[in-house]
């Protein structure tokens, strides 16, 4: 009886490790590119501007935005820096996603090998914030 219980437990454990993990929850993902993606400042309410963008990957359109809309000067400074980053041959966008299959990214940072733009000032490492790094 005990042997049967141990065998059942080992099977459950093996099953859990082998089963692919899909769409578990909010996590962070990196998308990398060889050519610039689209970003712009879009007017919202009360003189606030939203930094938004999009890109296509394997025929699927992904949208990008920031957590909040802010003053025009902040949006334009951010846009200028992001466009600077994107001039490099290779750059990446790190963003928060609702789950692994999400088609929308809340942008955390845009970076290449030399410079980066970050939404937060001095952000911590992603391993400190997210349980799921996709």
């Amino acid at each position, binding site marked *: 009886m005990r042997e049967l219980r141990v065998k059942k437990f080992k099977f459950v454990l093996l099953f859990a490790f082998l089963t692919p993990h899909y769409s578990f929850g909010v996590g962070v993902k990196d998308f990398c590119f060889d050519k610039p993606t689209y970003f712009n400042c879009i007017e919202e309410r009360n003189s606030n501007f939203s930094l938004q963008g999009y890109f296509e990957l394997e025929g699927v359109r992904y949208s990008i935005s920031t957590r*909040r809309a802010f*003053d025009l000067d902040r949006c334009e400074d951010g846009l200028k820096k992001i466009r600077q980053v994107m001039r490099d041959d290779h750059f990446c966008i790190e963003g928060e996603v609702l789950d692994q299959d999400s088609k929308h990214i809340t942008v955390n940072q845009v970076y290449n090998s030399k410079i980066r733009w970050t939404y937060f000032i001095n952000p911590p490492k992603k391993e400190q914030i997210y349980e799921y790094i996709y």
Partner: protein
Amino acid sequence: MSKKKKVVDDKKHPWRKCPLGQHWRSPSHVDAHTRKKFNVKEHYRKGTCVKNRSGRDTLYDDEIYLISNSFFSKMKPKISQNKLGYKKGNEYNQLIDGWVKYWNDILKPKVPLDPDFVKVMIATESSFNPKAKAYAGKRAGHARGLMQVTDQTVKYLSGHRKELRNHLLHLEQDDLYDPNINIAAGIRWLYRKKQIADARYKEASWLETIMLYKGYRSMNHPQIKKFIKLYERIKSEEI
């Protein structure tokens, strides 16, 4: 001819230690110093109620701590235990529950604020990072902490330009990295945004209030849709 008595609402929240118009100052050690040409010796100052300069109900940091330490652990939790995928997703549950109850009691909205709503707000504003700091522009200054309360908001919360008629908070910018103070302040500010949204939309929903807080115009904005999805998740306990 009888004089009509002026009815004054002098009820303070049961969690407050001092009468209306005063705030609690904790006991502290005072170093020797000179004040108005007098030499003051080093001494221990007892905790006491101090008159608010504004004359209005004001929370200071000492009392924020006194309230949370005295009452929050005794509350039955209403908030979801869902971490939403964030490592610190459950770390501030008690503070959120407590301050939502406090501000719901004080400001008495028709539809009480749901603590899970605030939890999702913190997730979308700072990803539960209490040290989060972002530049919000020349007008707003920096946004700090869990609920990304801006420098401009700190001024308004203290009574600047009479943006708030009552129930103020007296804070310093660096206080906003303290989760307890940040949540107390952020929820109070959310209530001010609700008041503005109510004037605009005639009894706005809390979701319309979030739109205002984040500066977005439409419910179709991806960030508002994200908020809704997270809130639905927390309510259905999908994860």
